[in-house]
């Protein structure tokens, strides 16, 4: 008889873990407060940037290692899904306006200084930029090219994962919030379920179990911009947070995301909208007549070191703190979770925290 696992939370990590454990022969039950479309999850608002090298500017080398491994894993994983998912790896570009050139230089030195991998960053002059993105070359004399990077479309990935889970006969209690998790036990408003293993992937929904978890507000704008032809994500240097302007299928362009220390889930503010839209317009004049399709807001679950963490007790594993790196590292994180569940030596041992401590633990 196969072992049973109950998973609380069907965002990106919950879905991916469910599918991975199903493939390993587990009998999987999924619980989520949202519908299967997942439109209210933090993952749905994420931009799906797969930029392991660029993240080194602020993140630890662990994130880059997990991100590079995940890029390879995504290709194989998306291939096996029952629906097509937009996924590309043409590298990414980083550019800065004239007055922010020093920021670009600081970014370059920081990334090169912290990089422990063989992934490379190239400096491009105007001619080099014109070869990759001809429409940007008139405005920018210089760019950085981060060769291994890529992106995917979360709005195609989440439904494709749902379809794969349905095909796999995974039991999915949607619109069913989990009220508590304990070793081997998962409770909803009106029922109690017993499993061999319980996985908590609820992100900010698990806040009461993680003393130091916080929300970091992110805002994105989605445009229809047929006059703009870009082939890869472009990161524009900004004094407070990185802004990506990234092409999506059907002439769409995603701009995001802001990064504000707040749990506020209210609509996009004027200031944020101005910052995001002016970033796009300053990159390419073709954005002037683009249509604003929508703006979205969500809060990323983050721990004090902005790294993900796994807290294990016998019969219960809690996963949290993906911060702005969910799509970037998901395959690697899920590999660690499934190895742990199977009792194998898990990769990335630094992710595992003792269950009694919730934070303030330098590693």
């Amino acid at each position: 008889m196969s072992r049973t696992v109950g998973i609380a939370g069907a965002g990106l990590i919950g879905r991916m873990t469910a599918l991975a454990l199903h493939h390993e022969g587990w009998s999987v039950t999924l619980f989520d407060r949202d519908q299967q479309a997942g439109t209210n999850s933090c993952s749905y608002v994420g931009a799906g940037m797969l930029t392991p090298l660029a993240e080194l500017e602020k993140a630890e080398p662990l994130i880059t290692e997990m991100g590079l491994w995940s890029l390879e894993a995504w290709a194989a994983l998306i291939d096996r899904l029952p629906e097509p998912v937009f996924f590309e790896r043409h590298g990414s570009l980083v550019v800065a306006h004239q007055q922010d050139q020093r920021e670009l230089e600081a970014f370059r030195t920081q990334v090169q200084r912290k990089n422990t991998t063989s992934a490379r960053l190239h400096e491009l002059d105007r001619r080099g930029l014109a070869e990759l993105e001809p429409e940007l070359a008139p405005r920018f004399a210089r760019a950085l090219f981060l060769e291994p990077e890529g992106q995917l479309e979360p709005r195609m990935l989440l439904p494709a994962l749902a379809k794969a889970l349905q095909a796999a006969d995974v039991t999915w209690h949607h619109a069913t919030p989990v009220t508590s998790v304990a070793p081997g036990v998962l409770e909803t408003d009106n029922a109690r379920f017993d499993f061999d293993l319980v996985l908590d992937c609820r992100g900010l929904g698990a806040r009461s179990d993680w003393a130091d978890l916080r929300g970091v507000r992110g805002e994105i704008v989605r445009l229809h911009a047929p006059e703009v032809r870009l082939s890869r994500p472009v990161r524009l240097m900004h004094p407070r947070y990185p802004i990506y302007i990234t092409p999506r299928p059907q002439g769409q362009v995603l701009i995001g995301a802001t990064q504000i220390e707040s749990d506020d889930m209210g609509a996009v503010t004027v200031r944020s909208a101005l910052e995001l839209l002016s970033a796009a317009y300053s990159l390419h004049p073709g954005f002037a007549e683009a249509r604003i399709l929508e703006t979205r807001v969500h809060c990323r679950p983050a721990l004090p070191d902005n790294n993900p963490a796994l807290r294990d007790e016998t019969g219960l594993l809690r996963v949290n703190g993906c911060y702005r790196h969910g799509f970037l590292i998901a395959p690697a994180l899920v590999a660690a979770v499934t190895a742990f569940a199977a009792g194998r030596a898990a990769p990335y041992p630094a992710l595992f925290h003792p269950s009694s401590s919730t934070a303030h633990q330098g590693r």
Partner: protein
Amino acid sequence: MWHLPECRDLSRLLIGTALYPSPEIMRRSIEASGADVVTVSLRRQNPTDGGGEQFWDYIKDLGKRILPNTAGCRSVKEAITVAQMAREVFGTPWIKLEVIGDDYNLQPDPVGLLEATEELIKQGFEVFPYTTDDLVLCTRLAEAGCKTVMPWASPIGSGQGLLNPFNLEMIRKRLPHISLIVDAGIGKPSDAVRALEMGYDGVLINSAVALAQDPVAMATAFGGAVAAGRLAYEAGVMPKRNFASPSTPTVGTPFWHGEPS
């Protein structure tokens, strides 16, 4: 601020809490800096909805004195509202008052600053005004009742260092009984040393540490710089001279070598 008996021994380095790679690196940087006072901004975290509570809890957990600021406020009314909110969130009458007058270099609005200062002092706040290095304005702020005045060295976040040491020295000489803190524009530890050597009571930094490639190491460097600068001020810097004065007699030198040619 060092005029208060309970503040006499506080570090002369004040440090901000914005722009760090993570709250954990922020915590380690602040520890490494030896700072006893940290500044924190409320403006963008939607405090009316309880927005930034967890982040503020991290800051409260540092166990440091908190100096909330009104960063990003562009009007007197806005600055006063944020100050009142800060008093509630952090339970302190201290407020670092910023009223920004120019969006490009974030230069304080001197007229609005003085007006907001007078109002907040009336409401019982201990106001730390962030101001340009204008002697008359600094004097008026002191007359309004500020015990600490914080002139800039150069625009916020610019890292340009002490652009007008002449003005800063004049303010120091003319306001001997006011605590003076160089607030903005410090880029490297030597800037902090200079300010302290000049007799400034302290410096306030944020970007210089948060945006360094290794914030924790840079925080340690600033801790040392501030200690060195203060000690040098207390020790008394020797007077500058316009000629060389050997500290050992030049007995072996033929006298004509010392003659003007």
